[in-house]
């Protein structure tokens, strides 16, 4: 297959990222349209690739026409195409809504912001489409470095949070590099498909075992799996709004994707499930992550920080699905990657809109907001219902598969934890919803109100929020189609 779409996905944002400082120095206003165009090209390419993959099976693209395993290969199967669409579409939506908030929060640095934004997206897309282990490391670091810089532009505590993130993130990436090195030493190959062929003979070697362990820790640091999540709350709370909206839904999900790749593609399921109890340990860690995230979120009054802890719990859900390692569980995990990306995008975009319009972050200050920004608050409610897992929003359906997976694996405790976390999420979000919608009793007599006019967020923020909300509502009901056409093939056979 020599159609250039796999490389186009990455190349267009990358080249545009290089051009933006130049063009921005010349005309600042051109940055935003350029970013939108680049990301639209990426999104369209990924949609087209999904179409091709559905018709013809896995796509292979050889960089520089060098055959694998000597050259770098880009492999797009169902899982990759699925992730590529998620990453590019979400970044497009966030980019669309970022215009106003960036101008408000970072007036001098608009050009650099967009440059780093595109670099981050390039890195994430690269992780998703590549089929080579070392190439993945390079893109991982591109994304991470752009992330450190983007987060550091934020408000007061941001540079320090970013520094901490950097320390942790570098440890994670270096562990990843180390394990790639171990695998290379024993097998002589860096290509994922090649490794999955060669490794089964070497499963009893200690080197491979160490490599696997380093992988899990490294990727766990990147995806903020408990107990390696410590950097996340600070980093996402202090980052600028547009950055949180970009990084929060994507970075951790791409990390989860890498986890799935390693546990099920590079190391075949027989290794991860039977030979060493990796998936069992993973599922227990994930359960603790879920409970930890939900419980700690209860104590937060800053909405963004609360959402950061909810994100840790959501990562726990995905890791639980991976750890359950049966068909239903993995379907739930992959579906949850999509659903969680949508929910978190919506929530963080709403937070950004609230910050832009009224400058408030403390949930106790949210009274009267439903009058001022009714549409935004409705979107928030829908996203909150999705996090809780109320049908027919999409969050319910991924939870359904996860619970099915837990019952299938005879782990009833996990099912109970999943349901308890739904209730904890309900407490979390209804606290905020009550503050938004119910006014203090003395404010309304028999119909007398203060006159608070509707002052909605600007259209450039409102339309992306509405698009994502429509997605949350419709993709739930359509989840059957998504599973039967895409996810079903992404789940490795033999589970």
């Amino acid at each position, binding site marked *: 297959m020599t159609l250039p779409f796999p490389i186009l996905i990455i190349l267009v944002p990358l080249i545009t990222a290089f051009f933006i400082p130049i063009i921005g120095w010349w005309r600042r206003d051109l940055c935003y349209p350029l970013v939108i165009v680049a990301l639209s090209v990426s999104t369209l390419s990924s949609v087209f690739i999904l179409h091709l993959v559905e018709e013809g099976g896995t796509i292979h693209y050889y960089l520089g026409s060098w055959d694998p395993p000597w050259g770098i290969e880009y492999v797009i199967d169902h899982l990759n195409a699925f992730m590529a669409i998620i990453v590019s579409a979400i970044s497009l939506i966030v980019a669309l809504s970022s215009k106003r908030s960036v101008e408000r929060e970072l007036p001098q640095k608009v050009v650099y912001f967009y440059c780093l934004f595109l670099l981050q997206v390039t890195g994430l897309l690269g992780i998703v489409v590549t089929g080579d282990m070392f190439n993945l490391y390079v893109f991982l*670091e591109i994304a991470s470095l752009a992330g450190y810089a983007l987060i550091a532009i934020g408000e007061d505590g941001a*540079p320090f949070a*970013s520094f901490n993130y*950097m320390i942790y993130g*570098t440890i994670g990436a*270096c562990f990843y590099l180390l394990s790639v090195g171990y695998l290379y030493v024993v097998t002589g190959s860096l290509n994922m498909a090649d490794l999955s062929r060669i490794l089964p003979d070497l499963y009893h070697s200690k080197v491979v075992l160490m490599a696997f362990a380093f992988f899990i820790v490294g990727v766990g640091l990147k995806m903020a799996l408990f107990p390696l999540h410590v950097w996340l709350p600070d980093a996402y709370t202090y980052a600028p709004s547009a950055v949180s909206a970009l990084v929060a839904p994507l970075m951790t999900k791409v990390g989860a994707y890498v986890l799935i790749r390693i546990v099920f593609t590079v190391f075949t399921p027989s290794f991860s499930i039977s030979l060493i109890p990796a998936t069992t340990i993973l599922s227990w860690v994930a359960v603790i992550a879920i409970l930890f995230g939900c419980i700690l979120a209860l104590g937060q009054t800053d909405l963004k920080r609360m959402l950061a802890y909810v994100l840790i719990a959501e990562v726990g859900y995905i890791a639980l699905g991976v750890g359950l390692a049966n068909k239903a569980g993995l379907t739930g995990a992959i579906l949850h990657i999509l659903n969680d990306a949508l929910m978190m995008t919506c929530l963080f975009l709403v937070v950004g809109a609230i910050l832009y319009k009224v400058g408030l972050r403390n949930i106790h200050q949210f009274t009267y907001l439903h009058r001022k920004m009714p549409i935004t608050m409705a979107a928030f409610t829908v996203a909150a219902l999705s996090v809780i897992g109320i049908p027919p929003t999409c969050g319910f359906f991924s939870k359904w598969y996860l619970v099915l997976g837990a019952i299938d694996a005879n782990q009833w405790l996990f099912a109970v934890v999943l349901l308890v976390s739904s209730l904890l999420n309900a407490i979390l979000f209804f606290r905020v919803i009550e503050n938004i919608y119910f006014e203090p009793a003395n404010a309304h007599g028999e119909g007398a109100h203060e006159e608070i006019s509707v002052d909605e967020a600007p259209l450039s923020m409102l339309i992306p929020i509405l698009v994502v909300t429509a997605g949350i509502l419709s993709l739930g009901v359509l989840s059957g189609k998504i599973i039967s056409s895409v996810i079903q093939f992404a789940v490795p056979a033999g589970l």
Partner: protein
Amino acid sequence: MELIISKYNYWVYIILMMIGFYAMIGKRNLVKKLVGMNIFQTAIILYFVSTGAKRGASIPIVEGGHGEAIHAIHAAHYVNPLPHVLMLTAIVVMVSTFGVALALIIMLYRRYNTLEEDEILELRK
């Protein structure tokens, strides 16, 4: 003893890595953390390169270059070039990380006037 002598490259890199790791976590000063990070990454690069070494091999450049007839190449005569190439990329990554980190440190110093982690945490309260 045999174990240590024959695998000395592994021991060196492990010790270096642990020094760097300790510095990253245990030191209070931000610049020392950064130095630790650098040592950590360098240790890994050292490990990679050391795995490519072979007994009695020379550097992986073919004499005679292009244009002239290429003799048969015995892989055992040349050090494995792939780790070198990979590590060039990794060194670039390391340097960029270092650059970003230094930029962050400058920002932090301008804001808090100190580079000690505990003092910064105090100031942030």
